């Protein structure tokens, strides 16, 4: 495993040098995160790149070329082999040189180029071009009938397996596979019972239309990206950019489309809480376990027919409203009303063990529900505020333009946008501190954490107030000072809180509640 990873790093460093020198289309982090430095202090020096689908295709080809320097096969065949081995170069080499080569080609659903047309080509000719890698075209002597449309055509094409179809049918077939079924590497020959995979050279030579070619490039690289642990597709809908990190520790990334997400779990950035805990929280919020909590905290079941009953008056003499039940019972002890006589105060079952147990269970349920609601309420509140801050951006933009008309330069008014950036980051962090706190068992460190959280929350609310209200009423010079100071303070508090939490992770200071 070790050596395998090293192998991958090698290629990467190689590729990145090449990209940087030859291609300015690569976006480095510094360019696309406005305040990336602030994000990074707890991660190892973060660095990542965003690759467009063309760049990722070129990068994939580079890996293919690397392997090919040794295997000396047509690149499109190497690509199929590598995909079969989930882009594990070492494994491919090992199998290729130690095992039965024909078997590898068969498993990978392609044809050994050395054995084309029954002739065994000596492998030491080293002349790759001798086995033409292009799709085979039949000589144009006679017109043949295509097995798909049953029409004669002069443009018959096929893979090395020898099944030929007309170019129109190929295009229709590929369009369905690529667009409708979302396939790329695993498109087989259309012939019945033939599992030979199409290669990118053939497909790109057959495809008509640039749209579908772009789509094909994307689909083709899918397997490559998925099997590469340092690359992920940006999860934003419709975005086809791949984010490639240089070390596995990188967490917070921002795609060139603007979407900021956690590289590990693909959720939006969620510091300080870690991925597994966040997952647990999101599941809790989405499932109806809290509905069940509410039901058990606020209702009881009819002891006879088990209908769920919510008490809506003070009287404890209950009559089940289920038409077929009509059971008379005592709400307190949940047994038949008849032995209670005229007054429930005489209920001699009140302290019976099972009714005590039932009452404690209900109290526990109530407490758990209240606790969840407390944290959930605050989490939701910050989430909602964060959504509203996007309105603030447009308001601030307007304000910045206004200030520039009042003798302030462009550069002088940038502090406002920066302050809103900080506000959003603090809100996002606050939102997730409530998830963290929900699972946290109280200890001394947890108390410090709560103090930090309170501090940050207060400062953030003040900053929000300045930006939303005071900015329109106060003197310009006055508000600039206020906003800048508060933003700086917020940023510092946020950083301190995160540092404390991450230190806690490192030193194992946090204890969690079992939920």
């Amino acid at each position: 495993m070790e050596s395998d990873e090293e192998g991958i790093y090698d290629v990467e460093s190689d590729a990145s040098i090449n990209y940087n020198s030859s291609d300015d289309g690569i976006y480095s982090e510094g360019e696309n995160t406005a305040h990336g430095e602030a994000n990074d202090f707890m991660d190892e020096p973060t660095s990542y790149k965003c690759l467009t689908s063309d760049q990722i295709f070129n990068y994939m080809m580079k890996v293919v070329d690397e392997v090919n320097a040794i295997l000396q096969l047509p690149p499109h065949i190497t690509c199929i082999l590598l995909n079969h081995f989930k882009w594990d170069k070492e494994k491919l080499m090992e199998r290729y040189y130690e095992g039965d080569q024909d078997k590898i080609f068969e498993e990978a659903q392609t044809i050994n180029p050395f054995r084309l047309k029954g002739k065994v080509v000596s492998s030491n000719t080293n002349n790759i071009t001798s086995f033409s890698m292009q799709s085979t075209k039949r000589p144009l002597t006679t017109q043949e009938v295509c097995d798909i449309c049953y029409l004669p055509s002069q443009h018959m094409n096929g893979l090395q397996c020898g099944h030929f179809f007309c170019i129109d049918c190929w295009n229709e077939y590929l369009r369905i596979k690529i667009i409708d079924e979302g396939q790329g590497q695993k498109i087989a020959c259309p012939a019945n019972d033939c599992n030979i995979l199409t290669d990118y050279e053939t497909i790109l030579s057959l495809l008509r239309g640039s749209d579908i070619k772009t789509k094909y490039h994307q689909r083709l690289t899918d397997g490559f990206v998925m099997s590469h642990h340092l690359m992920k597709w940006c999860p934003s809908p419709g975005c086809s950019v791949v984010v490639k990190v240089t070390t596995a520790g990188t967490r917070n990334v921002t795609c060139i489309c603007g979407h900021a997400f956690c590289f590990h779990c693909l959720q939006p950035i969620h510091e300080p809480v870690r991925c597994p805990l966040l997952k647990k929280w999101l599941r809790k919020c989405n499932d109806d376990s809290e509905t069940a909590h509410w039901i058990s905290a606020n209702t009881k079941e009819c002891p006879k027919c088990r209908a769920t009953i919510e008490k809506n008056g003070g009287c404890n003499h209950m009559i089940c409203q289920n038409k077929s039940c009509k059971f008379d019972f005592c709400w307190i002890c949940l047994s038949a009303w008849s032995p209670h006589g005229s007054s429930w105060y005489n209920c001699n079952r009140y302290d019976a063990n099972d009714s005590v147990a039932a009452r404690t269970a209900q109290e526990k349920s109530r407490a758990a529900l209240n606790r969840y609601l407390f944290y959930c309420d605050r989490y939701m509140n910050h989430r909602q505020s964060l959504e509203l801050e996007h309105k603030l951006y447009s308001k601030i933009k307007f304000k910045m333009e206004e200030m520039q008309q009042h003798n302030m330069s462009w550069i002088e008014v940038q502090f406002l946008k920066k302050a809103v950036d900080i506000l959003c980051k603090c809100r996002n962090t606050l939102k997730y501190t409530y998830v963290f706190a929900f699972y946290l068992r109280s200890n001394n460190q947890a108390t410090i954490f709560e103090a930090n959280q309170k501090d940050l929350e207060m400062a953030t609310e003040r900053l929000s107030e300045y930006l939303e209200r005071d900015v329109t009423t106060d003197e310009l010079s006055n508000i600039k000072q206020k906003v800048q100071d508060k933003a700086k303070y917020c940023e510092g508090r946020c950083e301190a809180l995160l540092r404390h939490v991450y230190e806690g992770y490192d030193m194992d200071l946090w204890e969690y509640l079992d939920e």
Partner: protein
Amino acid sequence: MSNTMEKRLQKELMKLVSEPPAGVTFDSESADSKLTLWKVKVVGAKDTLYDGESFILQFKFTPKYPFESPQVIFIGPNIPVHPHIYSNGHICLSILTDDWSPALSVQAVCLSIVSMLSSCKKKVRPPDNVVYVSTCSKNPKKTNWYYHDDSQS
């Protein structure tokens, strides 16, 4: 309607009428005017469990035919009792979904089904017939078929 589909179905129809394979009869009158629905008669081969029985296969084609497989089911009063054929006429046959190839045809499908019938050793319904028939979609292509290895059944 797609041109490929229309032309191809015309040709298939002509061929199936003029030179039908053994055990398959097709009356072109049974197809609708747009050729999207065919009914093909299949007769059980001699010396098999289905000797003398006749069945009706219904083919439905979408405009994406032959790139998309046709929907094929048995219809009518006589549904063959077979370990891969459900009592509602649905057929568990991989070439009808996963292993479909545009190079296959109505004739090839008919032949596959005839040979599936001929190789049957015991007339029984699939073990999950009752559950499947009461829960499945009308369109057998919406079922996630799990294809059993024929050699084991």
